[in-house]
């Protein structure tokens, strides 16, 4: 990744694609002992007006930071994350996640970068948005 000095507001962090794989999600639900039927019962989800099983926000969050972490290669860089789930992400959806730098500054000797993050589905619908504050170490 570029150095703090090289990073400019407006720079795009390379996007990442992930498929909400049914088998992967089944295993994940087992791991977290998912109890909300919206996330595993298709009929229940449809009765609530959804197309099919809605993937839990906590699962999509598992991938939300991927563009930043792939870019910085530093898992300790993340300071704050905000995430808003606007539209459902369904099982087997293919999502694309990207980020754009919105601010950079130095505070108490630490180099901070802020970015907006977006997630869209295969229909190019904006399903999730958010922002992140992370540090860049020399």
């Amino acid at each position, binding site marked *: 990744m570029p150095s703090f000095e090289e990073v400019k507001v407006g720079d795009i962090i390379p996007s990442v694609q992930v498929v909400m794989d049914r088998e992967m999600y089944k295993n994940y639900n087992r791991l*977290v002992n998912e109890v909300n039927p919206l996330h595993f019962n298709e009929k229940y989800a449809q009765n609530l007006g959804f197309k099919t099983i809605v993937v839990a926000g906590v699962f999509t969050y598992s991938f939300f930071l991927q563009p930043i972490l792939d870019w910085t290669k530093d*898992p300790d860089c993340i300071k704050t*994350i905000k995430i808003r789930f606007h539209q459902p992400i369904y099982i087997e959806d293919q999502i694309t996640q990207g980020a754009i730098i919105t601010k950079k500054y130095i505070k108490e000797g630490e180099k901070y970068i802020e970015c907006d993050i977006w997630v869209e589905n295969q229909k190019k619908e904006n399903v999730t948005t958010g922002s992140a504050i992370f540090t860049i170490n020399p």
Partner: protein
Amino acid sequence: MMAEETPLIILLEKIDGFMQGMNPVKINLQERKAAKFYEIIGRRDTQSQAEQTISPEYLMTLLAPYATKVLIKILEIELPYKIRGVIHTQSEINYFKPIHFGNYDLFSRLESLQKKKGKTGNYLVFTFRMTLFNEGQEEMANDIHQFFLRIGEEVS
């Protein structure tokens, strides 16, 4: 307006009381469980592995069963409405220090409770905060979640 707000305030105090009664939840953060998460999502960064810490994307998963417990507690409380569904709408996560495997205390508080009218129905909007402390009582991270509970008619 007062008549509408008073029951919500009572409900908020009741639910917050329940949550505080659960505090602190003891968490033993195990490498084995984190490894399972990384295996499922197909990622593991070598730096976290070498430093015996969890990477930030695991935190929400780690705390998810406790958030679920809180929601179940909320549903167990005699709510004056029938609950039709639960939707996670937003979160904010703040990381203060790298989180190593080991023992932690988790504290939860209900921050706000509102009633909202949406396009598809009426909702109770819960915002709660979970804060993770290490054994030295240092705040490691916090996790603020908002959930919409779709509500039906009032239960008399």
